[in-house]
């Protein structure tokens, strides 16, 4: 099954752009009429829906920032009628405040369709068995993969995360051909398989990995393909956009962004000017068909470049060529987005520790570790080890609750960590080799 939606996937660039303009105009109109948030924003920048006459006019629309999501928690960005909402997912925000994402039935359909097309473009079809080892639940990853797999007509094994030996066992017992997980977890699975005396290449039918939700390099990709004997396909998405949406195709040369789903702009983050085709810059994403919570010109924070060069797979939908980093200080740890500001926010709730902190991220084996050093307040120092451990645990438990990952906390003496905003870079030490 080379195409999932032949008509749309084979559109030429001009046809794609024509469709994008039509969808953008309709979306801008709908937002202006129904979304109190965007109505106000569009009035602020004095743009009416009818002012969008060319695709470039998207740049006249207001952008949406992560802080807008935080400030409008939980539901002020939802677009009526609210009874059409059929699901929520929740993703991490930049502080203690998470982001709630809403979906109508059609949003779920389009999300599944987008990823089903992507799966098909890797060569997958009805006869495939997909083991979804992404997190299920509030995180959109697991369910996104799951619905797309079913939409494609493939068989889905909703394995979820963890219990790696059992994951390997499933691959042996069932004809699993594809696994969806983070790249680092794929390496972990390969390692555990090896320790079990299982060759993923010879003892299983695994052919593909749909890997994403964290940054990874070409060398890590090569290592995965070598150790697991699979083809590794990069996947892109974000909960704010729906969830995992796009992947590389068989050519493994960039991630196709379906033009009817999303309009991606690349801008110079300093000047705000549009970047040329293939030039690296900040990504701005407009979801063209989302209903319950569409974001216009969302500054998602990733750096990338977009290429309209026709792909050897025959599709002309543009490709994200390489995700090269972040505009902000977001880190991805074990597939989970972490902002240093979330840590800072939590520290305000523990009076025994100061507001200075340092995050040390490392990768031990294939698993990310996160150590957070916090300064003890001078008056909180006591000879009582139990009390000190209690402070330590209070911070660790609080961070676990906010970040949703286990962190190690280390108490350090007052005034021993680098100070303040000006040395922001020293707040995070990332030792991982991706």
């Amino acid at each position, binding site marked *: 099954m080379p195409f999932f939606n032949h008509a749309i996937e084979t559109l030429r660039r001009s046809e794609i752009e024509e469709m994008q303009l039509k969808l953008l105009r309709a979306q801008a109109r709908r937002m202006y009429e129904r979304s109190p948030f965007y109505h106000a924003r569009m009035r602020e920048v004095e743009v009416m829906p009818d002012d969008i006459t060319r695709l470039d006019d998207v740049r006249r629309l207001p952008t949406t920032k992560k802080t807008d999501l935080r400030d409008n928690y939980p539901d002020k960005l939802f677009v009526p009628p609210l009874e059409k909402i059929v699901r929520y997912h929740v993703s991490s925000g930049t502080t203690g405040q998470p982001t709630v994402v809403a979906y109508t039935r059609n949003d779920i359909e389009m999300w599944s369709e987008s990823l089903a097309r992507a799966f098909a473009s890797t060569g997958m079809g009805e006869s495939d068995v997909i083991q979804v080892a992404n997190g299920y639940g509030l995180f959109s990853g697991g369910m996104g993969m799951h619905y797309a797999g079913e939409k494609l007509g493939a068989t889905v094994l909703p394995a979820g995360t963890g219990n790696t030996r059992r994951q390997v066992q499933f691959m042996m017992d069932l004809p699993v051909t594809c696994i969806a997980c983070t790249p680092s977890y794929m390496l972990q699975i390969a390692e555990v398989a090896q320790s079990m005396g299982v060759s993923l290449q010879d003892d299983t039918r695994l052919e593909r990995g749909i890997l994403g939700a964290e940054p990874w390099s070409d060398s890590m990709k090569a290592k995965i393909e070598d150790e697991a004997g699979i083809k590794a396909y990069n996947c892109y998405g974000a909960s704010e956009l729906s969830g995992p949406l796009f992947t590389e195709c068989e050519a493994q040369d960039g991630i196709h962004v379906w033009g009817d789903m999303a309009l991606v702009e690349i801008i110079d983050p300093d000047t705000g000017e549009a970047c040329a085709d293939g030039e690296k810059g900040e990504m701005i994403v407009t979801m063209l068909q989302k209903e319950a919570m569409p974001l216009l010109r969302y500054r998602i924070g990733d750096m990338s470049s977009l290429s309209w060069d026709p792909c050897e797979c025959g599709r002309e939908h543009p490709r994200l060529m390489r995700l090269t980093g972040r505009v902000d200080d977001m880190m991805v740890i074990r597939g989970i987005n972490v902002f240093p500001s979330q840590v800072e926010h939590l520290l305000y709730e523990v009076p025994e520790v100061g507001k200075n902190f340092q995050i040390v991220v490392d990768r031990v084996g294939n698993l990310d570790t996160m150590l957070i050093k916090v300064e003890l307040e001078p008056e909180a120092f006591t000879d009582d080890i139990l009390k000190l451990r209690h402070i330590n645990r209070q911070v660790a438990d609080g961070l676990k609750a906010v970040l949703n990952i286990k962190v190690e*906390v280390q108490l350090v003496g007052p005034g021993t960590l680098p100070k303040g905003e000006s040395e922001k870079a020293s707040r995070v030490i990332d030792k991982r080799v991706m």
Partner: protein
Amino acid sequence: MSLHELRQISVLLENKAGRLAVIAGALQENGVNILAFTIAEAEGFGVVRIIVDDPAKARRSLEAQGLAVTENRMMALRMLDEPGGLYGISRILGEQDINMEYAYAFNRPGKAILILKVTDINTALPRIEASYPEFLEECSGYQHC
């Protein structure tokens, strides 16, 4: 201060190479002599506990290094420096219902000194003095030890 009381200085010890040298160096520079010393280890950090000849000076010099310092009142008891010395003391503590949090010991020529962190030193001290005067040792500074 009771005759059986000592001041212990505690310093936060970070899990970083060379931290102990900073502490010891500060004491050396100020001519403070360390009589006893122990490190309690927790998750990723430790607490250095020291008995010195001049607690006030020790505290000043450590704080001058920017270190987190705190003081505790400790019970100091002389033990018989022979088999059964600790047994004698611990039996008394039990009989007098004295709860201890931690303890360590050190030797001076001919003397064995037990340092105790008790839960309530104000009630513990008179009980010890009343019950077993033969174990009393003048310890109000190191000079008596």
